[in-house]
């Protein structure tokens, strides 16, 4: 069980959170202008990174806030936690 540092509530057990997958996939502002291919890219295609992945977590059993986590998927180490709308603090 990870120990996740919620940017609002502090360090909590993973069981208080849910994971929302890859971060920084912005919903297209004008979906109707997109081709089927482009829409599928947004909808389904994922980097599925092995290494540092930027992903979304929700402190669902706490403050209910979504935030971003930079986690190395090859060893599950969390390198950074940052709020929605912020840019990743690491590369």
């Amino acid at each position, binding site marked *: 069980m990870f120990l996740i540092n919620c940017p609002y509530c502090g360090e909590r057990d993973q069981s208080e959170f*849910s994971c929302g997958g890859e971060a920084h996939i912005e919903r297209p502002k004008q979906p109707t202008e997109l081709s*089927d*291919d482009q829409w599928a*890219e947004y*909808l389904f*295609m*994922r*980097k*599925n990174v092995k290494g540092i992945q930027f992903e979304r977590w929700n402190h669902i059993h706490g403050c209910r806030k979504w935030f971003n986590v930079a*986690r190395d998927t090859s060893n599950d180490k969390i390198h950074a936690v940052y709020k929605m709308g912020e840019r990743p603090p690491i590369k």
Partner: protein
Amino acid sequence: MKNKYSIFSLIKNAFSGHENWQRTWSDATPKKEYDAIIIGGGGHGLATAYYLAKKHKMNNIAVVEKGWIGGGNTGRNTTIIRSNYLWDASAGLYDHALKIWEGLSQELNYNVMFSQRGVMNLAHNLQDVRDLKRRTHANRLNGIDAVWLNTEEVKKFCPIINTSPNIRYPVLGGTLQKRAGTARHDAVAWGYARGADQMGVDIIQNCEVKGIKRIGDKIEGIETTKGFIKTNKIGVVAAGHSSVIANMVGMRLPLESKPLQALVSEPVKPIIDTVVMSNAVHAYVSQSDKGELVIGAGTDSYISYTQKGSHNVVEETLRAILELYPIFSRMKMLRQWGGIVDICPDASPIISKTQIKGLYFNCGWGTGGFKATPGSGDLFAHTIANDEPHKLNSSFNLNRFVSGDLVDEHGAAAVAH
């Protein structure tokens, strides 16, 4: 021709102290060039190579594996084999595999211990009943041997299940496929490796792919830890690592790689003689020939390549096990492990060409790839050899995510009322 395995060869070799058995497969060093290369030496990859050589006479091919063959999900799964899928496309695919399983030990001359002890799926609420009945009807009309069992029949088929109406989610019935069962996972990889090796396929272990070379939209070869190998056709069967390979050519796939855990108990004398799966009280269990209870847990919600999952998934799984089999409370977990499963949004696989000529993907098997091993290999070999999918895998193309023709095997998406 290698030793043929039989009781007679076993006796013969016993006299010579088993000194004269030949290698099951040879460790090859890579040639400069192959007609096709399969990336990934799991069951699916080795089966693909086997059928490429056997049915399509492509013998100058290689399987490259970054570790040891069968070391990924092939050697980590709970070995359930069944074909009672809902949609026609899935039923076609998995039943094709099941039919091959039925003669596989003989075909490979390697006992993969396919044991048709039946697989039962339980229903615990009214929507489960509707969904499973729907599946049973569809199976029957597709020629798949599924039958609906009421609670008493469930109890009769597997007496240790707690079918009391007073449990939190009582068993309301179930669907049974008798032709379904289990097999010995390692043997599948080793048997296909032996078969492929006999036909000249190079099996190259400890060879990690570092890059894919292409010129324009054409494949030129692969960069590996054992050097560059030239080829015009690459079949990627890398399971959890499919996206890692795809990223090498700048492709993204509709996949997420997540931890899937399983565990076994200490071995005991026979106590459960079939495979029982439950979705609502989420757990599945069978007993291996060795006597261990083999229990499958769920996936975690996050991506991870660590082959480790969260403890709470194991706890939840065993909670479900004890709800259905309270007699197992004193049984002990002997070993617990994780695999990396690549999951598609519609819980169906991809066996497909790509936009890059000569590059093929076989992935997205999620939590249930083992059962499809022979069929997957056969159909992927067909796709690679002909540069066209077989009728049975035509639905499992990459384009379905663009056009919207998903093969959604999640069943009922939401609990509602």
